[in-house]
């Protein structure tokens, strides 16, 4: 991947779901600042993200978050070469707040605007310097993106050329965690709740795995239904031990399918590495299993860069400049933007 000399320092905004985030990143790699204001406590009482509430919270938080992201810059605005923002996928109203804030900033400062695909940006989190001194991954790579809204396996043959190999046919992995946590009465967000409950499990009958062997696609709806069946069968006698067992069995099933399909794709395409991205990459079982089974080196960003953040948006904006990515101020949000579209 070649460096683009023109737009080296990028201010990025991310508001696709329930985190209001801004970051400044230099050369697509060095994090100058990375600020995230989480709304998770506000949404917890609803057991999910409420779109209208999320949009309003973004509006309240954006000014302070952007100021905090710019604060470490001694030269202030004059150090910024471009403004980037997420245009999709995500909640329409939430996306509008960040994209339009970015437009206003770009217009007022006479800077170029770069609109970014949120899912693609998760991949570029692995290009950010995490302080480990490790070199960033080099294509060709297989990428597994797992989050609340997305589960997909992609092939990054070269810079910017992300090709989808397979995706979920029903629920996203993170969504399956949320829904199963709901079935088990474990609370929201489901990922950490399931992981916590699973840790106290003392053995559980395995749940089914949907391999869909003819493709790289995933399916988690049947697994959710299998948990539902067990919950129904137990009825009101379902106790904490059974909950923990089901949480563990569910997590093992999801992790097993994700890891094996990713490793199979890496072998088949003879790539040099695997990148794990998205909020579900925070799951310790998934990280451990992938590291143990992968036939090639694995890159996993630190936890703070796996969940939604703006540093990855800045990185994606930087690394995607070479293929040509300038958006006019008339660009619109794209709530159902697919991978491969920008």
């Amino acid at each position, binding site marked *: 991947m070649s460096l683009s000399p023109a737009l080296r320092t990028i201010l990025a905004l991310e508001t696709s*779901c329930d985190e209001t985030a801004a970051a400044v990143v230099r050369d697509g790699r060095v994090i100058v600042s990375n600020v995230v204001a989480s709304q998770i406590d506000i949404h917890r009482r*609803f057991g*999910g*993200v*409420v*779109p*209208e*509430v999320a*949009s309003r919270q973004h509006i309240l938080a954006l000014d302070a978050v952007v100021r905090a992201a710019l604060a470490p810059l001694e030269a202030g605005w004059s150090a910024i070469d471009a403004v980037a923002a997420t245009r999709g*996928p*995500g*909640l*329409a*109203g939430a996306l509008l707040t960040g994209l339009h804030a970015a437009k206003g900033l770009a217009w007022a400062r006479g800077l170029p605007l770069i609109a970014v695909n949120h899912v693609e940006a998760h991949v570029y989190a692995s290009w950010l310097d995490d302080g480990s001194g490790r070199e960033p991954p080099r294509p060709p790579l297989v990428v597994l993106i797992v989050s*609340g*809204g*997305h589960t997909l396996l992609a092939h990054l043959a070269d810079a910017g050329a992300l090709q989808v190999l397979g*995706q*979920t*046919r*029903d*629920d*996203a992995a993170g*969504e399956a965690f*949320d*829904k199963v946590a*709901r*079935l088990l009465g474990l609370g929201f967000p489901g990922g950490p709740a399931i992981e916590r409950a699973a840790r106290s499990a003392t053995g559980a009958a395995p749940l089914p795995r949907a391999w869909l062997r003819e493709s790289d696609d995933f399916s988690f*709806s*049947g697994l*959710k*239904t*299998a948990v*539902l*069946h067990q919950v*129904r069968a137990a009825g009101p006698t379902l106790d904490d031990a059974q909950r923990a067992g089901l949480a563990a069995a569910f997590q093992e099933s999801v992790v097993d399918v994700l890891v094996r399909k990713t490793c199979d794709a890496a072998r088949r395409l003879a790539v040099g590495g695997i990148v794990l991205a998205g909020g579900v990459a925070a799951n310790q079982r998934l990280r451990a299993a992938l590291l143990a089974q992968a036939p090639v080196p694995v890159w996993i960003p630190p936890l703070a860069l796996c969940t939604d953040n703006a540093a990855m948006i800045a990185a994606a904006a930087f690394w995607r400049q070479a293929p040509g990515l300038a958006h006019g101020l008339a660009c619109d949000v794209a*709530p*159902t933007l697919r991978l491969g579209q920008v």
Partner: protein
Amino acid sequence: MASLTIVCGSPAATLAFGARLGGLLARGDVVALHGELGAGKTQLVAGIAAGLGAPDAVTSPTFVVIQHYQGRLPIHHADLYRLDGPADLDGIGLEELLDGDGVCLIEWPERAGDRLPAEHLVIACAWLGPTERSFTLRGAGQRVERLITALRAVER
């Protein structure tokens, strides 16, 4: 009020029933899908979309609230679970779609309060067993009654 209950013994049967229903839907139809998690709502929608000729796989709309597909008619598939109440509908543009030129398939419609059109097809989805689901169709108004009558003839 017309009513019809269909029992499907497998996910494939649910898809096939959905496809037959999809084949009968027309511009402006609104379908409200009630039922708990795992009751077969999204599976039924996948069948309906296939019956309407949509080539894309139907995925859960929970994260983005509304997914759009194109078959012989535009298909709007909404999951209102994450909405707090009818006031949140303003944020997602559902009302324009309800008056639009396509078919609206709405999961967790109770979140919309009384904001759905008076005449719409209600489907109560229920879990009977590991693979069995029941779908009870009802609704008032000429269009919905014609739909249920047509479906009863097909399902017999």
